[in-house]
């Protein structure tokens, strides 16, 4: 039953072909087969958002997506945020505003932030909090994360 299914999808703009078992999640394939360990494993029940990636233009918990479902699709992970090795304004804002403590939630938070700003370039604080609600941060730098996102969006801080 663990037959391998060949799939092809683009990851951070690069075409990848890989053979996966049906029951392997996108999270597992990204980390274990493609060696993109930026996306993290934590709750595995779609609650914490540490595994957040973009799939076909929307953020998803990759722990709840089978790799085969991404066949023919486009995936973006945290490794895809910095173009040509230069940090994006969002990443820089996170560093400047102290939105990174232990950093384990950071990749997922960045993906959610990236997606939020893509749809809502100037979010209010409430919209940021709601948009980031699916990303748990136990170090609890929620306020700094919100500031960083709004700074990246060019908003004035509160």
């Amino acid at each position: 039953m663990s037959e391998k299914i060949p799939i092809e999808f683009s990851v951070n703009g690069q075409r990848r072909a890989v053979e996966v078992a049906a029951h392997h999640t996108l999270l597992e394939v990204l980390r274990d087969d493609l060696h993109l360990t930026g996306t993290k494993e934590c709750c595995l029940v779609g609650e914490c958002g540490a595994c957040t990636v973009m799939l076909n233009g929307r953020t998803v918990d990759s722990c709840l997506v089978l790799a085969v479902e991404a066949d023919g699709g486009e995936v973006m992970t945290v490794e895809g945020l910095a173009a040509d090795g230069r940090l994006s304004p969002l990443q820089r804002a996170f560093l400047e505003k102290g939105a990174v403590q232990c950093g384990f939630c950071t990749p997922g938070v960045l993906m959610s932030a990236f997606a939020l700003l893509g749809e809502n370039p100037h979010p209010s604080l409430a919209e940021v909090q709601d948009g980031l609600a699916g990303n748990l941060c136990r170090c609890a730098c929620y306020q700094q994360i919100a500031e960083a996102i709004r700074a990246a969006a060019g908003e004035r801080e509160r």
Partner: protein
Amino acid sequence: MHPFSYARPERLAEAVDLLLKHGPDARILAGGTDLILRIRDGTLTPRLVIDVKRIPELCSGIREERGRLMIGANTVMTDVAAHPLVRHHFQALSEAAAVVGAVQIRNRATLAGNICNASPAADTAPPLLVYGAVVVAEGAEGTRRFPLDEFFVRSGVTTLRRGELVSAVELLIPARRMGAVHLRRTRRRGHDLASVTLCCGVDQAGMARLAYGSVGPRPLLRSDETGVLADPRGQETAKAAVLERMFAEAAPSKTSMRASPEYRLAMLRVLGSRAVRTAIERLAQGGAR
């Protein structure tokens, strides 16, 4: 996770055939936000997972068709919540869809999947019931249409027959304006499974419909045609009496760790009276955003 096989039919008939052939050994995979969880924790052990996301008949999205709003089976919560027609005509459904999990879940979880999973706490169930949603199911014997109220049996169980799957949910665009609201009780402000879900809608003719969930094996729909609930000048005590009758069948779980039966029953009443008030206000304001 236990291994399983995967099929990705590209035609509805193919999916139906697979369902007929495998019966309970196969499960439909739409958004996966319930299925993957349950396979991982071992409460479901399908031999075959049928990914229906590429079946064109299920990808119709949200469309208005002859006075009905059709929500295709593969429509995700994000789109249900944001669609202008849903917001305009079915505000409480938009509200409910907007609180299913967080963004990442809403981008995957489908409306059809939410009702097929048949959790008593399904957030979209109360508004769908209040709005009189109709389930469109496709099977070996063709298409069946029936009210959502006839769909739920108990937790995890629906009246779908072997070989059937939901292809769409239909909502009749109401001739009479309705004011409605969706409320829920959770343990924190952040995303959570609800320990009480409730929707109340009132219309210009004085009809009130109220549906609630997570206080029994399935969400329940009740209505009040006396006009008492919907009356903006009605007395609280009279309304409370009507609500009491509506809640009479509530039978909350005695073993749930999310909330005690006592609390759930009390919150049913608190949310009920608040929902009635808000529904009346919304109707007065125009019944839409």
